[in-house]
């Protein structure tokens, strides 16, 4: 005895999955087109530089989301890794005369190695100590990089040579770095997507949902968390290094700042940490808003208040972010998704009868016949 709802549901789902696939590909093409044409659309060099800043934020937020989105562990101190990536790049160039791009990658590898003991210390126990360590790390690095003047340049900061040489003009430099950031972002998104669909990713998402349960099903939770944490630190360091090469100057106050780390959190959370493009969307919104704020009101305490208020609103009222909220809105207009519970309750009753008649093992065949 097939129930009507089931007969309707299956074809409807098949149809929507093809249309959503087409929509996704189209969306991706539009996004790529927008990114590629942005430098030529930008009216002046300033807007172009804002674009680079936003792309850099998108890289950092997406890197953050490797650990935040998959495992649900919120790190407030990812500025530690972007800062170290930047400083590592700068120091390798200025002190060891390494090629700038090689320096950036080498710094990323060094930071990833550094993240291993940090991860071991902070991921063995759940939740609270992870956050505490993440904050402590930024504070300690700020202290060290400010005080160890002979090596890091101290509070005066450190200057990097321009990687493309001095004959490349500012707008040209901005354009190149915009594309470089976009390329790095594309690599990150590809990696996130690959992990998201992999068995590894399934284990990570299970950790986010219920860590004990995941472990009881055989997921090696600690190893998984540590691996994804190190991946996240590596990419964050690359992002920090690339930013350093573009900006050409590092100041510990801005590199090892809790605020920078919390921007990554706010951006990811606002866009949606469980979505591939969530952090990117968040970075565009928050990054644009911040630049707007700075241009309008200068560097006052106002941005702290705005940032605090926005974060509180997101945490309290939309902890899942914009993308899931939009998706929910779209789903509301689809007939079959609206009432899973009712359908399932009816189905369950029907199946219980069926199961009682025939016993469990024949149910598979029965299903085949129905469809």
């Amino acid at each position, binding site marked *: 005895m097939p129930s009507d709802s089931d007969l309707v549901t299956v074809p409807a789902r098949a149809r929507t999955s093809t249309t959503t696939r087409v929509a996704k590909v189209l969306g991706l093409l539009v996004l790529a087109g927008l990114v590629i044409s942005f430098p030529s659309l930008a009216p002046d060099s300033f807007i172009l530089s804002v674009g680079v800043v936003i792309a850099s934020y998108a890289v950092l937020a997406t890197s953050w989301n490797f650990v935040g989105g998959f495992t649900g562990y*919120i790190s*407030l101190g990812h500025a530690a890794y972007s800062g170290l990536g930047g400083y590592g790049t700068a120091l390798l160039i200025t002190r060891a005369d390494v090629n700038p791009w090689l320096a950036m990658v080498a710094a990323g590898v060094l930071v990833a190695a550094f993240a291993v003991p940090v991860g071991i210390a902070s991921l063995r*126990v*759940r939740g*609270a100590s992870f956050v505490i360590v993440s904050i402590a790390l930024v504070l*300690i690095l700020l202290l060290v990089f400010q005080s160890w003047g002979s090596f890091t340049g101290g509070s005066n900061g450190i200057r990097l040579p321009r990687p493309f040489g001095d004959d490349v003009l500012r707008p040209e430099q901005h354009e190149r770095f915009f594309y470089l950031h976009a390329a790095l972002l594309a690599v990150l998104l590809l990696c996130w997507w690959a992990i998201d669909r992999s068995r590894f990713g399934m284990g990570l998402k299970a950790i986010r949902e219920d860590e004990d349960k995941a472990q009881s099903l055989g997921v090696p939770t600690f190893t998984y968390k540590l691996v994804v944490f190190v991946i996240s630190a590596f990419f964050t360091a690359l992002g920090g290094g690339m930013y350093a090469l573009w900006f050409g100057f590092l100041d510990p106050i801005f590199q090892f700042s809790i605020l920078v780390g919390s921007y990554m959190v706010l951006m990811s959370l606002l866009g949606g940490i469980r979505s591939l493009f969530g952090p990117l969307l968040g970075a565009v919104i928050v990054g644009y808003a911040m630049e707007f704020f700075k241009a309008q009101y200068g560097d006052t*305490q106002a941005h702290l208040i705005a940032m*605090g208020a926005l974060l*509180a609103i997101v*945490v309290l009222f939309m902890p899942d972010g914009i993308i899931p909220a939009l998706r929910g809105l779209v789903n509301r207009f689809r007939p079959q998704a609206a009432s899973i519970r009712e359908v399932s309750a009816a189905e369950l009753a029907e199946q219980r009868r069926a199961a009682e008649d025939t016993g469990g093992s024949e149910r598979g065949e029965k299903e085949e016949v129905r469809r």
Partner: protein
Amino acid sequence: MTGSLLLQSLVLGVLLGGLYALLAAGLTLYFGVMRVVMIAHSAFLILAAYLAWFFTRQTGLDPMLSLLFTVPLFFGIGVLMQRLLISRLRPATLTMMSVLLTFSIALLIEGVLGFAFTGTHRRIRLPYSGAHLEFFGASIAVVKLIAFGLAALSLAGLYILLKRTRFGQALRATMQHREAAQLVGINTDRVAGFGFGLGLATAAIGGTALALDSTIYPSLHWHWIGPLMAIIVVGGLGSVPGAAIAAMALGLGQSLLQIPLGTTWAQTFFYLALFATLMLRPQGFFGGRLAQRF
């Protein structure tokens, strides 16, 4: 290193440890009743310090009198914060989301302080600001002694409240096992609210003590939150006595290390202790099984 210098560092370490202990006790209360890591604790500390400074500037009275209104005010804010904000969060993600929520409150406080009083460094001038006590060749500022006295008195009061009163009993029961506490008829929501209020009241007292002998500015709270976090982890999250012992030990350590290393590098001691604790004994050195699960 001379004996009197060592003695002076020891005494200063104990005095500093007292203040740390009071503030860490507050942080432990929040964590105990709600499993909340309250990042805004030190921001409230600085807020209380500003209120004490502002009170003295406006009235010319002693900053300690500001406690008469800051303590009840902070207690009320704490209760409201728990009831209106923290309790809204989903239990499954409470630890992480409460960190973000209290972090955003810290930013708001810092921003508002910067707005209201600008970023200028402030200091209270008192008739006894410059007074010192000689103590076997060690010279100890009177204001530091007063600050320690305030902290010690409040900590003793908190201890009596927790150990000797019915409310304290309910609070400890809620911290140890929330469901069991509910089963024996404790209104754990109300207790959690009061626990939050008490925690914030320690920030009010600590802030006033801080204002007596320190220069304050809006972003100062970042210098406090790191050491305090280290203390509660070393002490074992959720253990009030553990936090107090760890606070004393780390305060002393910091003060002694200042002699060979200088103030800046001495601060790294907290972070080293934090990492060492998590590597060797993740449940903290004095904590119970509470920490193990978090």
